[in-house]
C-alpha cells in the first residue's frame, strides 16, 4: 500500500484540519468500526462458551472425538473435515486479497478472476457447514442409559433411528462407554452378544440419538447449543459475505468501479471477508481444538 498512509507528516499538518488525520477514507473507517463491534459479539460468544465449559462439572466432549467423519468415507479422521473447511476459507481469503491487489493496479480482469474464485470458495464453505450440521444432528447411532446408570453406544450397520425396529436388526450391538465420558469405549468391559444387547436395550431408561436444542449424544446440552449458535452465527456471516461479494463482482463486471477510478468497494468487501476468516480461525481453535 502506498500514498498518504505511508507519508511522514507532522502532527500540525495531520491534525490541522482539512484532511483525515488517519489518512483513510470514510467508508473504510466505518467498515473497521463495524468489524470491531462484530468482533466483540463473536468474542462474547466464545467467552460464554469458555465460561460454561470451565464451570461445568460434567464430562465435556472434545473436538477430535466428535468431528471425525468425512463424506462418502467410513472410518475415523479426527478434525480432517474441519481442517479442510478452514483451508477453503483461508484460500478464499487469499483470493480476496489478490482481488484487492489487482484493484489497486486497476486490473479489471484480475479483479473479476480472483473475486469469482472468492465467491466459489465461500459457497463451498457454506455447503461444507451444511453437511457438518446435518452430520452433527443425525449423529452416529446414539447411546442408551441402563437402570444402573451405565451408558452403551448403539451400533447398527445402516443408521436406523427408529427405536422400534432398531434392536431387531442383525447387525445391532451395544458397546459400553467409559464412565464419565461420552465418546470413548470402556476397554475393560466384556463383549455383549446379541441376546444380551437386546435385553439391555429393552431395559433402557433413556435413549439419546443425534443432537437437538434440548439434548445430544455428544455431551451436555450446552455443547450442541453453542455449536449451533457459534457456527450458525459465523455461517450466516459467511453467507452474507458471499452475497456481498457476488454483488460487488457483478458491479465490477459492469465496470462501475473502473469508471469511478478506484476499486475501494472491493477492498471494503474484502475487509469484511477477511474478518469472517479471522473469526473462523478463533472458532476453529476454541471450539474444535481446545
Amino acid at each position: 500500500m502506498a500514498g498518504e498512509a505511508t507519508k511522514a507528516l507532522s502532527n500540525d499538518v495531520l491534525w490541522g484540519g482539512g484532511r483525515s488525520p488517519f489518512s483513510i477514507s470514510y467508508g473504510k473507517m466505518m467498515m473497521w468500526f463495524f468489524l470491531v463491534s462484530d468482533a466483540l459479539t463473536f468474542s462474547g460468544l466464545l467467552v460464554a462458551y469458555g465460561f460454561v465449559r470451565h464451570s461445568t462439572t460434567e464430562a465435556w466432549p472434545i473436538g477430535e472425538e466428535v468431528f471425525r467423519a468425512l463424506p462418502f468415507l467410513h472410518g475415523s479422521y479426527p478434525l480432517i473435515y474441519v481442517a479442510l473447511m478452514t483451508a477453503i476459507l483461508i484460500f478464499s481469503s487469499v483470493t480476496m486479497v489478490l482481488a484487492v491487489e489487482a484493484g489497486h493496479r486497476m486490473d479489471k480482469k484480475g479483479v473479476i478472476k480472483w473475486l469469482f474464485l472468492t465467491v466459489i470458495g465461500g459457497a463451498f464453505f457454506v455447503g461444507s457447514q451444511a453437511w457438518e450440521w446435518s452430520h452433527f444432528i443425525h449423529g452416529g447411532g446414539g447411546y442408551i442409559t441402563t437402570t444402573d446408570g451405565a451408558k452403551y453406544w448403539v451400533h447398527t450397520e445402516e443408521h436406523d433411528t427408529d427405536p422400534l425396529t432398531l434392536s431387531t436388526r442383525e447387525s445391532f450391538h451395544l458397546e459400553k462407554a467409559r464412565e464419565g465420558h461420552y465418546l470413548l469405549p470402556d476397554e475393560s468391559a466384556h463383549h455383549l452378544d446379541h441376546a444380551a444387547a437386546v435385553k439391555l436395550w429393552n431395559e433402557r431408561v433413556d435413549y439419546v440419538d443425534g443432537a437437538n436444542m434440548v439434548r445430544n449424544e455428544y455431551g451436555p446440552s450446552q455443547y450442541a447449543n453453542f455449536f449451533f449458535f457459534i457456527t450458525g452465527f459465523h455461517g450466516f456471516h459467511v453467507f452474507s459475505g458471499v452475497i456481498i461479494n457476488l454483488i460487488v463482482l457483478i458491479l465490477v463486471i459492469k465496470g462501475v468501479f473502473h469508471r469511478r477510478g478506484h476499486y475501494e468497494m472491493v477492498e471494503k468487501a474484502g475487509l469484511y471477508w477477511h474478518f469472517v476468516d479471522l473469526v473462523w480461525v478463533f472458532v476453529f481453535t476454541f471450539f474444535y481444538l481446545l
Partner: protein
Amino acid sequence: MLRDDIIEYSLDAHHSEEAGRKIRKNIWMVTLLLAVITTVEVALGAYWKEWFPESWSMVKLGYIVLTLVKAGFIVGVFMHLGDERRNVRLIILLPYLLFILYLLFIAIWESNYVHRMIEMFQ
C-alpha cells in the same frame, strides 16, 4: 467528480505493476505460513494426545499462541492494518483489547467460582 480541495484517499491506494509483484509475493508467503500453522495444529490434535497425554495442557497453550500469530498475519497483512497509520491501528485495536481482556479475566475468575460451588453442593 474529483475535487481538488480534498484528498481522495481511495485513489491513493493505487500502486504500480512493480510494487504489485512484491505485494503478491508477500501474500503467498503469508498463505504458506497460515497453511503450515493449521496443518501443525491438526496434526498435534490427532497424534500428540495419544503419544504424550501428560503434556496436553502445554499444547493447548501452544494452540492459543499459534491462533494469535495467525490472527496477527490476517489482520496485519490481509486486512492491511499494518500499512495504515499508527493512529488507525490504535483506535481499532485498543478499545477491543481493553474490553476483551477484562471479559476474559472476569469469565475465568467467575467460572472457577461457579465450578467450585457446583462441586460443593452436588
